[in-house]
């Protein structure tokens, strides 16, 4: 167990007692507090993409920003014309990215199935979240007209088969890592323990809370810690204040544009519901971020 898993465990215990004390959290409060947490940790964890990229590749700034913003624009256009395809693509990219960041601490280069492991681990994570919260998701998606087409995701048979197969393959691949001597028993147990803990979280708590717990602690904070350690290794003068200063400009810029789009949506200037707009914004910035992080992790 590392410090991130410990923080996750402490938060789980805290939530157990909150639930025991008040019986549950209203959906409006869930959305409000979870959105705040996702924004506070989710945006900063991707706000250093440009710095991380230039640490690994010698590309011109114009080229980098053109490709980065071009990918953002491409995904927005894809959403306009092919929403179902975009959602599927977004889930696959996210799954891969979640899986990749989960195994950043092990030397996986010599493992031939590493890409498969990232993808399957991430897909099992997402399908677990859906599997344990199908009823809740049905209600949430039918609240808005433009999210109704995503019903295909909650088709029960697909979810059940996906749940069983992805979990089995993910666990099989973890054992395969042990078999190939890439990890030891202790690491395998740690990974299986965390996997079980994520299952328990998604099973016990509502969809939004379950996802926020995973995304904020096990993904965003974990990635930021990795980034922090990377810079700290480069310079002894690097500290938390410098890190916050580094992430602030692009965090504020992202917040400004997102806020602007949310205002347009709430005033009905663009006819996209807030949940769908959030999904579009998140997926548009996830695509280039996942690519940058892949380069960063892979070209160690």
């Amino acid at each position, binding site marked *: *167990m*590392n*410090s991130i898993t*410990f923080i996750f*465990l*402490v938060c789980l*215990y805290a939530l*157990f*007692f909150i*639930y*025991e*004390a008040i*019986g*549950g959290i209203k959906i409006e409060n869930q959305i409000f507090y979870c959105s705040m947490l996702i924004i506070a940790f989710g945006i900063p964890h991707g706000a250093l993409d440009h710095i991380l990229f230039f640490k690994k590749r010698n590309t011109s700034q114009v080229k980098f920003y053109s490709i980065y913003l071009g990918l953002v624009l491409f995904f927005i256009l894809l959403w306009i014309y092919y929403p179902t395809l975009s959602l599927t693509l977004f889930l696959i990219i996210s799954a891969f990215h979640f899986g990749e960041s989960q195994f950043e601490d092990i030397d996986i280069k010599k493992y031939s199935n590493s890409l498969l492991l990232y993808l399957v681990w991430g897909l099992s994570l997402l399908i677990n979240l859906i599997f344990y919260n199908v009823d809740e998701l049905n209600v949430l998606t039918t609240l808005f007209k433009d999210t109704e087409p995503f019903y295909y995701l909650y088709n029960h048979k697909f979810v059940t088969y996906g749940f069983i197969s992805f979990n089995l393959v993910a666990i099989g691949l973890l054992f395969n890592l042990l078999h190939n001597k890439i990890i030891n028993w*202790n690491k395998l*147990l740690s990974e299986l*323990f965390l996997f079980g803990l994520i299952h328990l979280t998604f099973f016990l708590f509502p969809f939004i809370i379950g996802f926020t717990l995973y995304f904020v602690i096990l993904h965003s904070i974990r990635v930021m810690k990795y980034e922090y350690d990377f810079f700290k290794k480069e310079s002894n003068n690097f500290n938390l204040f410098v890190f916050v200063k580094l992430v602030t400009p692009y965090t504020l810029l992202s917040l400004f544009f997102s806020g602007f789009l949310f205002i347009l949506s709430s005033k009905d200037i663009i006819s996209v519901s807030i949940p769908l707009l959030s999904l579009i914004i998140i997926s548009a910035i996830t695509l280039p971020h996942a690519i940058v992080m892949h380069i960063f992790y892979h070209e160690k």
Partner: protein
Amino acid sequence: MLLDITTMAPDDYVGFTFFIGYMAMAAAAVFFFIERGSVDPKWKMSLLVSGLITGIAAVHYFYMRDYYLATGDNPTFFRYVDWTLTVPLMCVEFYLLTKVAGARKSLLWKLIFASTWMLVCGYIGEAFNPAGGSTSHSVTWGVLSTLGYLYILHSVWMGEVAKLADESKSDVVKKGVRTLAWFVLVGWAIYPIGYMCMDGGWLNSALGWSSQNVDLWYNIADAINKIGFGLVVYNIAITESKK
């Protein structure tokens, strides 16, 4: 005389685990006391403590088994008397194992204090819960008890105990302390499940998990933790003694 014999239903899993628990603890205690003669003098204390943990638990399981059979109730009182004696002793094991790497007495007292705090708060939360279950009561004492648990968990995984184990020259000690840390992380986590199953507890009210299951959870956890804990210590002692 025969009238005093209580019949047991074949599906009385709680009763079943009380019997199994009692015999397993007693057998483990005998094993640790006898095997104490096969290890180096520096490991004798560790094995003595392992024997005491399972021995004390065996005596309490003897009483708890009878209490459960006679009344059908949870033997909360005996349970906590047992834990108040055995859990600090488990913490003593961490101190004894890391002593070779320079563990100080202060570590021993901190671990004993944290474990006693955890148990006393848990006892107040469980034994003095008003009839029908009071949520505020169980939450308050549950939170306080959990603080003690988290302190121990942090210490054995990332804190003083973990650092001392890493500094130890012996790979067996390093591995052993890590295995014991797993017991604290996974094995000890079963107890809060039991706590939340009691009347007024979240798992009881939200998921409908019966308070009858509390003893089943506790008996399974005790068997795994106490005997397993002792066997890990035994393995360290015997491996190091053979060197």
